[in-house]
């Protein structure tokens, strides 16, 4: 699914003394089925850009469209629905609920959709097998290893078969082996047709051969070297 940003700016606390300009006039096109890395130091605006693409909040000005639709500016009741169907998120700290089992964590995004428990389990088991963590299905998520946790987070992002995957610093808490494993999974997803945007300043990510394009962000602007 095509992602298109045109003149996107984001200002936090606009008009207040603590105003912060996080993004300025970003123009960006991410083609369908490509894997793009947003690279830049901490505080450069990568996560803000990812949040705007992910329709977490609208830009302060400019156009952010997914498949020509400005999802982030849809009325709230529609935005939630479209975001759920279109975008899968992988967070830096995975945001897994440690008390729930691995299976329950993965099926969590399906609960508001009213999908029958049997179908939820079927989809989850398919992903558990794909990521080789079936044996952990009934384990509380707090008791599994970092690598397994990462795969649970990916499985949760894919459970609704969204066409776009956004990952914010996904390897920040992983060692080299797990980071490579993560990128291998992303590559598989890209081959399967997903559009992937990863915000990261980890060389293992932005130098990975599967990355089609690396976008340097500095002080809220796209930096052309």
């Amino acid at each position: 699914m095509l992602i298109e940003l045109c003149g996107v700016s984001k200002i936090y606390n606009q008009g207040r003394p603590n105003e912060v300009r996080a993004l300025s006039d970003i123009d960006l096109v991410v083609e369908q089925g490509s894997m793009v890395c947003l690279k830049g130091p901490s505080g450069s605006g990568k996560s803000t850009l990812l949040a705007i693409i992910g329709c977490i909040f609208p830009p302060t000005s400019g156009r952010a469209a997914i498949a020509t639709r400005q999802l982030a500016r849809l009325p709230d009741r529609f935005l939630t629905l479209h975001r759920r169907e279109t975008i899968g998120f992988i967070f830096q700290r995975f945001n897994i609920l440690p008390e729930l089992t691995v299976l329950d964590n993965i099926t969590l995004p399906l609960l508001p959709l009213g999908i029958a428990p049997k179908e939820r389990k079927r989809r989850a088991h398919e992903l558990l097998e794909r990521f080789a963590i079936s044996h952990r299905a009934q384990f509380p998520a707090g008791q599994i290893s970092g690598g397994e946790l990462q795969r649970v987070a990916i499985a949760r992002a894919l459970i609704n078969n969204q066409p776009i995957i956004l990952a914010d610093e996904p390897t920040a808490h992983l060692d080299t082996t797990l980071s490579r494993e993560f990128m291998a999974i992303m590559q598989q997803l890209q081959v399967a047709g997903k559009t992937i945007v990863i915000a990261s300043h980890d060389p293992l990510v932005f130098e990975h051969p599967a990355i089609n394009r690396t976008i340097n962000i500095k002080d809220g602007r796209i930096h052309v070297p």
Partner: protein
Amino acid sequence: MFLNPWSLALSLCSLVVLLLGAIAGRTAVRVLRFWEPGSDSNRQIRLENEIWLSSTLVAYGLGFQIITLILFVLAADQFCQVIVGAMCATGALLANPFGMPALLIKLVGVFFYGFWILLHQLDIRSEHYPLVRIKYLALLLLLPLLVLDVTLQTLYIAGIKPDIITSCCAVVFGEDIGRTANLMTGYSQQGLLATFIGSIVVLGLLGGGLLQRWRSWLAKLYAAGWLWFFGLALVMITTVVSSYVYAMPFHKCPFCLLKPEYHYFGFALYGTLIAAAFCGTSPAFAGLVRGRKGLSAIVARYQRLALILSLLLLVIFSGLSFYHYLKYLISGGEG
């Protein structure tokens, strides 16, 4: 009478609603001046975010203002305990010149506030913000009514003094016993009953016709029919229905029906009537915005639902209206 729990509750809540209205009024002016749905400007995006909060608050505020109609009548019913001569809300509302106008404005407000909430609900069901301008223009036009509503209510509460001597419902609505005419003098019960039954049949036929095939002119006629029926039903309740509920031929009062002695029968009666009249008039109102982008199917769905509800409520209201009358005819008395 401000130091009374009912007065305090009513006054404070109305002030909050008025404050919300004033804040939303500011947004309304900005929407009318700057709203550009196709723009990616900072101002437009800020407005889009702003209208969500202000519309929601206004919708809840107006919803509450509708409920104040009930609170207002209940408060008046409480006030009668300290006003000489008052036996129910009738006497309390006539204790100063602002009571009845306040009630009337609240009653009118139920429809107008309801129509605004309906506009809001239709608007948020479309992805394209099709009614934002209309909604906020309507809000600006509605604000004077809201101000009048709160002002009359405040003047009424402020004007209630325990030393006022007022008339009770028996004098205001009772049968003319040859001394003076009153509010209900001159209505023939048989004539009213026939008109009432005839109106129910006509409304039923109009509604049935609309259900068969939707026609815009018929919906407008149906709405006009409901406005007529609403007024007629209020007269009918006072002059005919109430006597049978009280089982006293000379006692006619639209407010005593709300008392616990009569099992709060009035709440069911008036509640059904107001809801039915709103459902009956709103399809024609919603029809005015049916042509807006993305609203055709949403409005059509609402119109059908409101029409069915209005017919259903008409049946319930008719049943409630005739319950005591038929009971009297069948059992030959209070039975």
